[in-house]
């Protein structure tokens, strides 16, 4: 091939040394170009209009999109009311549960921040730890929040060297069990006589699987228990299972207790129990790959009889669409602990909203949140979500919609959350949160069910991961 055919018609003014390496002159030019780029960028930025908008007359709010459209409509209505009352323009944007943590992280990295973010799976404790969040004590003290919710937003800031109120509690949820009454009836079991002792409860559903299959010819599983590294459900559900077996990984102050041999042994029992569900064929094998909608989808399509799930989103999603099917779904608490020492405490996970230290309109953001957490507004928002989330304000909790509900599902979550509760460990410790989001529990369970390791070694692995995280994020 001759010169004329070479790409970009090299040849004339070729800067390359004959051996093809870049000459020094080229390198100098490259350096010059790099400097040029580095200088040009910020210069252009200075001329740019600034995407965030720094006017104090505008509040930018990023809100986690609801599972139901009605939820988003309610948030929109509240934002409009706030806009009318305050004279501020509210730029309200919805992002899906999976998308909003990414947007939030991008915003923090780039420094172009909204004024408010409500992300269900946001990394609030990490951002508080890094000193990125504004102190919102003003908003937190404007309502009487439950003790659990107040505690869940009291977060450690390593920059300030102390804890403070760095988030506003928005709602909370726990993890009940859901099952199909009609599937049990089809299996020839009596849905009203489910044992509440641990072994009896699981025995009941496992034998229902066999009889359901032989009577209907359909391949359904007793339980759908999320075990993947990508589903948030895995974190909630595993915490419930660990608490059932007395494996209290954290102490009341968010410190790590997992190294205690007794707790480690209990952890192995809990993980072993989940491993057996999988290995004995009582849960679909796909559970190790489920995303957040995995168990909901499998349950609503009746391929599983029972599933644990955070919030009441399962019955809520069909309440309006198909009332008969809705009535077929039963919500109930976990069975009593395997050692017979009473009920499993309910995990209370709090969703929160944050304002950033560098938000262009911090005051506007806080005013918006203050408006949002007013009982009448919160109630509107929670009702639009069919009560799948539970309130965090004492005043809303005592509202008959929750305190004296005629919805059997809401009744159960009210009962669970007014009994013995434990904070979600995700809320309680930044180190735990970090480890869990890297897929700690999905990996530990996966080692048992996919790699045939013993529950004891999986527990060892989990403890080691937790210890590493706690050394990266000391203090709380």
């Amino acid at each position: 091939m001759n010169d004329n055919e070479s790409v970009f018609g090299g040849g004339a003014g070729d800067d390359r040394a004959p051996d093809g390496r870049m000459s020094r002159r080229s390198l100098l030019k490259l350096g010059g170009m790099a400097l040029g780029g580095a200088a040009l960028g910020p210069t252009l930025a200075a001329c740019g209009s600034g995407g965030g908008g720094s006017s104090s007359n505008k509040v930018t709010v990023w809100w986690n999109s609801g599972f139901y459209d009605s939820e988003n409509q309610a948030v929109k209505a509240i934002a409009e009311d706030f806009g009318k009352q305050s004279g501020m323009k509210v730029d309200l944007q919805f992002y899906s549960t999976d998308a909003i943590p990414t947007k939030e992280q991008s915003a923090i990295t780039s420094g172009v921040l909204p004024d408010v973010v409500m992300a269900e799976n946001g990394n609030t404790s990490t951002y508080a730890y890094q000193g990125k969040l504004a102190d919102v004590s003003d908003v937190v003290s404007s309502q009487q929040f439950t003790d659990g919710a107040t505690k869940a937003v009291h977060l450690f800031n390593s920059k300030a060297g102390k804890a403070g109120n760095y988030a506003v509690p928005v709602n909370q949820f726990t993890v009940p069990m859901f099952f199909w009454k009609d599937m049990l009836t089809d299996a020839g079991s009596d849905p009203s006589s489910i044992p509440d002792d641990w072994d009896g409860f699981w025995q009941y559903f496992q034998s229902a699987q066999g009889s359901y299959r032989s009577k209907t010819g359909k391949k359904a599983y007793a339980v759908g228990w999320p075990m993947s590294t990508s589903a948030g459900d895995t974190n909630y559900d595993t915490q419930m299972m660990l608490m059932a077996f007395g494996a209290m990984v954290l102490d009341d102050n968010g410190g790590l207790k997992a190294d205690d041999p007794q707790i480690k042994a209990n952890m192995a029992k809990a993980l072993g129990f989940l491993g057996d569900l999988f290995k004995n064929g009582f849960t679909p094998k796909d559970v190790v790959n489920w995303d957040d909608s995995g168990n909901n989808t499998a349950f609503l399509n009746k391929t599983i009889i029972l599933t644990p799930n955070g919030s009441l989103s399962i019955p809520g999603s069909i309440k309006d669409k198909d009332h008969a099917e809705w009535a077929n779904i039963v919500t109930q608490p976990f069975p009593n602990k395997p050692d017979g020492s009473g009920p499993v405490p309910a995990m209370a996970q709090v969703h929160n909203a944050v304002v950033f230290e560098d938000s262009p309109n911090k005051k506007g953001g806080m005013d918006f949140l203050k408006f949002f957490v007013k009982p009448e507004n919160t109630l509107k928002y929670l009702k639009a979500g069919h009560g799948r989330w539970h309130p965090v304000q004492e005043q809303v909790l005592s509202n008959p919609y929750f305190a004296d509900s005629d919805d059997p599902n809401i009744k159960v979550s009210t009962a669970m959350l007014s009994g013995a509760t434990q904070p979600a460990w995700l809320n309680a410790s930044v180190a735990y949160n970090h480890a869990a989001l890297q897929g700690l529990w999905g990996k530990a369970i996966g080692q048992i069910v996919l790699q045939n390791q013993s529950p004891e070694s999986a527990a060892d692995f989990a403890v080691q991961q937790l210890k590493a995280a706690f050394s990266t994020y000391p203090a709380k």
Partner: protein
Amino acid sequence: MTGRRSWQVRLPQALLGAVLLIWTLMPVYTMAMLALSPQSQVFSGHLYPHTPTVQNFVDVVSQRGEYVGAFWLQMANSAVTAIGTTVLVLLVGTLAAFGIARLRPRWGSFVSNAALATYVIPLSFVSIPLYKVMATYGLLGTRWSLVLAMTAFASPYAMWVFSQHSETAISHELDESARIDGASSWQIYLRIYLPLMTPVLVAIGIYAFLLAWNEYLLAFLLLGSGSTTTMPVALSDFLNTDNPPWNSFMAASLFYALPPAILYYLFRNKITGGLTAGSVKE
């Protein structure tokens, strides 16, 4: 003799053809089957839709339903960003390729080397920094951010193909004689270069269009929600629900796949010709 021979050739050919058809069409069939299923049968594990319905397509086109409520807006957003990228890539790419390959400045090879190095940086590796710089430029959330990012990363390939093509398709003597007749560089660019480049312009135009039309990661990171969302991002949101509407997801996807498919079938010969311009000449 010839009969036996043609049988020996035809049978393996037919078998290979059948394998290729199955290989290609299985995922396409799954898409179509889901799009034709009512919600109650999406998860039934059937081999074909037992009660096929076109309702999903009707819902998408008439924007009925939570996830397809802004379908046409999202399609329009995709079209605007893809067309914007196409125009910019063609403009910036032909200008630069003409400047470097035809006018041959001494620093030309340096620019072309730097450009080629860009061409091969995987986009996903620079997605985070790109987010940051778009924020710095105040472009975050605007269509420009996506169009400019796609253009920057599609242009080097365009320049490479343009240069290759022009070297074989346009003789330097033509430029020279035009110049002797008093034509300026701009006149040569407009009157000689561009018209003779038409086949590759079409090919690269389609390449750029498809690249932008399909881009998920940057569209997701750089564009805001709502009014500027493009189809790939909107589609991934379908699955964020209790009971993902896979049927309307696939119905919307099939509409979304139509423009690129049509483009290809209209311009297939130009695409294949253009993209390999000069690459095997000896």
